[in-house]
């Protein structure tokens, strides 16, 4: 009895037109099928290969296949080329007597399966294979019955493979912190203290992180490579704006397309717009929604200044179609406005006040605060007047019915406008701006918010630096609302007041980076937010022309490090590091003060500081996967650094020495 060796070989040869980049994961996939007709004793072979779009740009696909018996005799064959796919089909007759079917080299070259983007993953992991890998069906011995259904088995296998190769991934998104309320962006430093603590868990933040995680449905393991898109859903609305022209800003994402990493996470930071209102953020994968949230951009605690009773001395004016109600303020400001009107009415109009005499209160803030875009037509302009009217502490009071004449108050002759300005002062607006070119006073209620008083100096741009993390030397605090300075430079005799602040100069050869030159006695404060209590290492990158200069770190006014040497580098343009370990910090906001000791000019240049967790020295015992991961990514494990070494870098953070 003859034995036939039925071999089916498929080659998906790719004629390279361009050298292939090893960093690119081109994809191809192949099909192979054998069917056997018992009636005609005919075996039918079919093989094809196909390239993905990108691969096909560079390559032609070629498929070669044959069936051979167990003695190596080729019973049938086919070959084809094409772009992006190639197929061959052939029949083999007279193989009825075969007892053994051996597929010795059923190969699918580069079995990279398409269709597993987005929410699905390739259960076989073929998408990770490079060209040159192959899938061998191996040798099989079948009896006749089995042989005769072999084709079906192959077909079934292919079908099963096609079905199961793409299993769904679970994707869930969450907000960090978990809140639907944000403050409008671009608030001023002076305004932020009024808002501290008003939004749970966010404090004065105008942004939050949306984090999405992809996990395999069956195993729950994280899935990498899933593309998450961060965007917007329904059009934004509310906030006190109506009938505007143009496209309403919805805020911004730090990244709009993010692929999940090896931990399954993909995240993006959403920053609220400058305008109050509701914005719907939407996260999608392959067009499917995986998360949605209505974000409220608002200044909390704003209340409407009530419509005045006839007996009250003010009228609300200035409402328009585009801003139907611009009379929202913090409660204290609203009370101040009512008291101002009452004082003015009672003292300046002892014989009664007509409506024409009442104070005209024009714009305060909009319903939810944020930028009050008063241009006509309203087109979501962020610039222009009303820059301050964002958090309910301002009000424009018309002067058109407050002439500069003499009135009698308590028997004394006084100037009406001067008198009214004192009324403003008595009720919370001391640095009132006369904007008579625009026919109004601009009231700015300053109630000396307690939070502002304790805040002391104000961090650069109003945002405290995060610890752990790096702090650029030039991002020292500005002068706080309570008069607490954010920095100090000893008098060097210069008359230019500019040099009473620490200078910020470009680093030689790195014009986009800056350093702060220092003199003895100089100090800079940095307001920081420590995320968790623990022991930290303080480090400064600095350099000095002179040997022996020292500085120290203070935390909330207490010297915590003692004198530390400013690295003597012999050049103002060369930097080195000064580090001190094991400084305990409690979680929360603190003010770090960097003080240069002694006296004299040009004691050192400071580039930046880092405050990172301190880990006591111990043996380096990396996990095996850490070493493997390091080697897979082209590095080698350095037991001295106890980290992955990449040509002078540690844990992929490189430092140029």
């Amino acid at each position, binding site marked *: 009895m003859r034995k036939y060796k039925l071999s089916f070989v498929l080659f998906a040869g790719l004629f390279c037109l361009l050298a292939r980049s090893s960093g690119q994961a081109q994809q191809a996939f192949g099909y192979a099928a054998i069917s056997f007709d018992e009636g005609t004793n005919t075996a039918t072979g079919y093989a094809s290969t196909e390239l993905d779009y990108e691969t096909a740009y560079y390559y032609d696909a070629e498929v070669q296949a044959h069936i051979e018996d167990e003695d190596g005799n080729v019973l049938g064959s086919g070959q084809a080329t094409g772009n992006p796919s190639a197929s061959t089909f052939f029949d083999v007759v007279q193989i009825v007597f075969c007892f053994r079917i051996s597929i010795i080299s059923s190969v699918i070259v580069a079995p990279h399966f398409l269709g597993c983007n987005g929410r699905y993953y390739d259960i076989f992991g073929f998408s990770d294979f490079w060209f040159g890998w192959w899938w061998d069906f191996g040798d099989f011995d079948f009896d006749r019955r089995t042989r005769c259904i072999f084709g079906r088995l192959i077909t079934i296998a292919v079908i099963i493979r096609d079905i199961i190769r793409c299993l769904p991934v679970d994707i869930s998104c969450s907000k960090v912190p978990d809140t639907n309320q944000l403050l409008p962006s*671009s608030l*001023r*430093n*002076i305004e932020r203290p009024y808002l501290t603590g008003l939004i749970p868990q966010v404090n004065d933040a105008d942004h939050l992180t949306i984090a999405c995680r992809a996990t395999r449905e069956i195993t729950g393991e994280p899935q990498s490579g899933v593309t998450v898109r961060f965007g917007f859903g329904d059009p934004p609305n509310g906030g006190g704006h109506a009938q505007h022209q*143009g*496209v309403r*800003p919805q805020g*911004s994402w730090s990244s709009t397309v993010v692929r999940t990493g090896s931990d399954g996470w993909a995240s993006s930071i959403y920053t609220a717009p*400058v305008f109050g209102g509701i914005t719907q953020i939407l996260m999608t994968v392959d067009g499917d929604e995986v998360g949605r949230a209505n974000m409220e951009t608002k200044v909390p605690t704003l209340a409407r200044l009530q419509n005045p009773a006839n007996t009250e001395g003010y009228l609300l004016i200035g409402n328009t179609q585009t801003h139907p109600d611009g009379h929202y303020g913090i409660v204290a400001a609203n*009370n*101040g406005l009512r008291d101002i009107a009452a004082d003015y009415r009672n003292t300046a109009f002892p014989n009664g006040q007509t409506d024409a005499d009442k104070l005209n209160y024009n714009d305060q803030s909009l319903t939810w605060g944020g930028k009050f875009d008063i241009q006509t037509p309203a087109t*979501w*302009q*962020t*610039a222009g*007047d*009303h*820059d*301050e009217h964002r958090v309910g502490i301002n009000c424009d009071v018309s002067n058109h019915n407050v002439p500069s004449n003499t009135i009698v*108050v*308590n028997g*004394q*002759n*006084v*100037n009406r406008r*001067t*008198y009214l*300005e*004192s009324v*403003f*002062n*008595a*009720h*919370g607006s*001391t*640095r*009132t*701006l*006369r*904007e008579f*070119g625009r026919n109004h006073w*601009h009231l700015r209620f*300053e109630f*000396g*918010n307690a939070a502002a*008083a304790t805040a002391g100096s104000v961090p*650069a*741009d109003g945002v405290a630096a995060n610890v752990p993390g790096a702090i650029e030397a*030039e*991002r020292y605090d*500005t*002068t706080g*609302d309570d*008069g607490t300075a954010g920095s100090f430079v000893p008098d060097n005799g210069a008359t230019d*007041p500019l040099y*009473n*602040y*620490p*200078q*910020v100069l470009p680093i030689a050869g790195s014009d986009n980076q800056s350093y702060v030159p220092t003199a003895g006695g100089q100090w800079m404060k940095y307001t920081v937010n420590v995320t968790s209590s623990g022991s930290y290492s303080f480090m400064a990158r600095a350099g000095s022309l002179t040997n022996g200069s020292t500085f120290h770190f203070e935390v909330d006014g207490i010297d915590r490090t003692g004198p530390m040497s400013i690295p003597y580098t012999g050049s103002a343009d060369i930097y080195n590091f000064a580090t001190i370990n094991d400084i305990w910090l409690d979680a929360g906001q603190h003010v770090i003060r960097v003080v240069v000791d002694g006296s004299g000019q040009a004691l050192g240049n400071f580039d930046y500081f880092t405050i990172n967790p301190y880990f006591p020295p111990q043996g380096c015992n990396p996990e095996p996967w850490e070493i493997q991961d390091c080697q897979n990514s082209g590095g080698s494990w350095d037991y001295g650094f106890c980290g992955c070494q990449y040509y002078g870098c540690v844990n992929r953070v490189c430092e140029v020495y």
Partner: protein
Amino acid sequence: MMALAICVGCSSSQRAQTRVQRKPLEKQRRDYQTPANYSPRELGYDRTTGKVVTYDHKPRVELKDDKAGKYEFKWIGYDGKEKAVLFQRGDVLDAVVTASVSKTSDNQYIYSYVVENLPTSAAYLKRFVVQNLATDVIPDNGGPFVAFKMSKAIEQFKDGNWLSFDDVSDDIQINPGQKVQIRLRSSAPPGLVECRASIETVMNGGDEEMPSALENLLPGYEDFPKGYTIGPVEDLKRFTTEERMKYMVEKLPQFRKAGWITDDAAVRYERLLKKNQTAGLVTSVDQDLQSEQVLPEFAALIRSMVNRL
């Protein structure tokens, strides 16, 4: 060595305070400088990219008159033109407050404050704000200044009641070297209270609102020079003599800080007050007032405490 020690002792003794010296209101020097760090100013949105368009508005502070503490806050406006707002520091005011109190036949206390705008000031006196801890205080509106009740919502004026006496006249201006008298009445006896004074704080704005980098520099009420004086304290009406003595002992550090009493006298009065020696207190305070060991404000408090006002 002995000679040196004696000499040091002499020197130290000579520096001891022998007479009280009334102190001007305390003030805090604040410097106003061009912001080193500021964010670019938003100009609008790019219609095609949706990104915010910004420009460098170059906010800066220019010192116009160092002695007068006048600055110009300047920036480039939205229209590309330079804007400026004139600002004057609050600490250019040097003011001294002298207070006295008398008791009328109907058991009303008349408080009189003389606020002197010292010649060293660089601005006219706009207002004098004085605290009271009583409920029946009536300001005397017969003077050149008009009284306003300060809002308790203001951090600096949240404790007790504060009356602000303001110059709101076209005709009167308390320039450096001039004084103004202010009076009020109350049934409450005198105690230690705080007071403040200020120059004109309203500013002439530009034709657009100031950028935040400059606005952030503007001070509020904390800019007002401040100090102590005497004023109505209602609690003292119900205090026993012992409680009044205790009140005075507790306030002695502040009297010293305010310059109302010499260090030596403070030691003596602490002893007298703790021993509740009312007769001795009156005798002492009369003598000490003559020898300038205490100021009239302190004397008035002592006399009031022993019902001799």
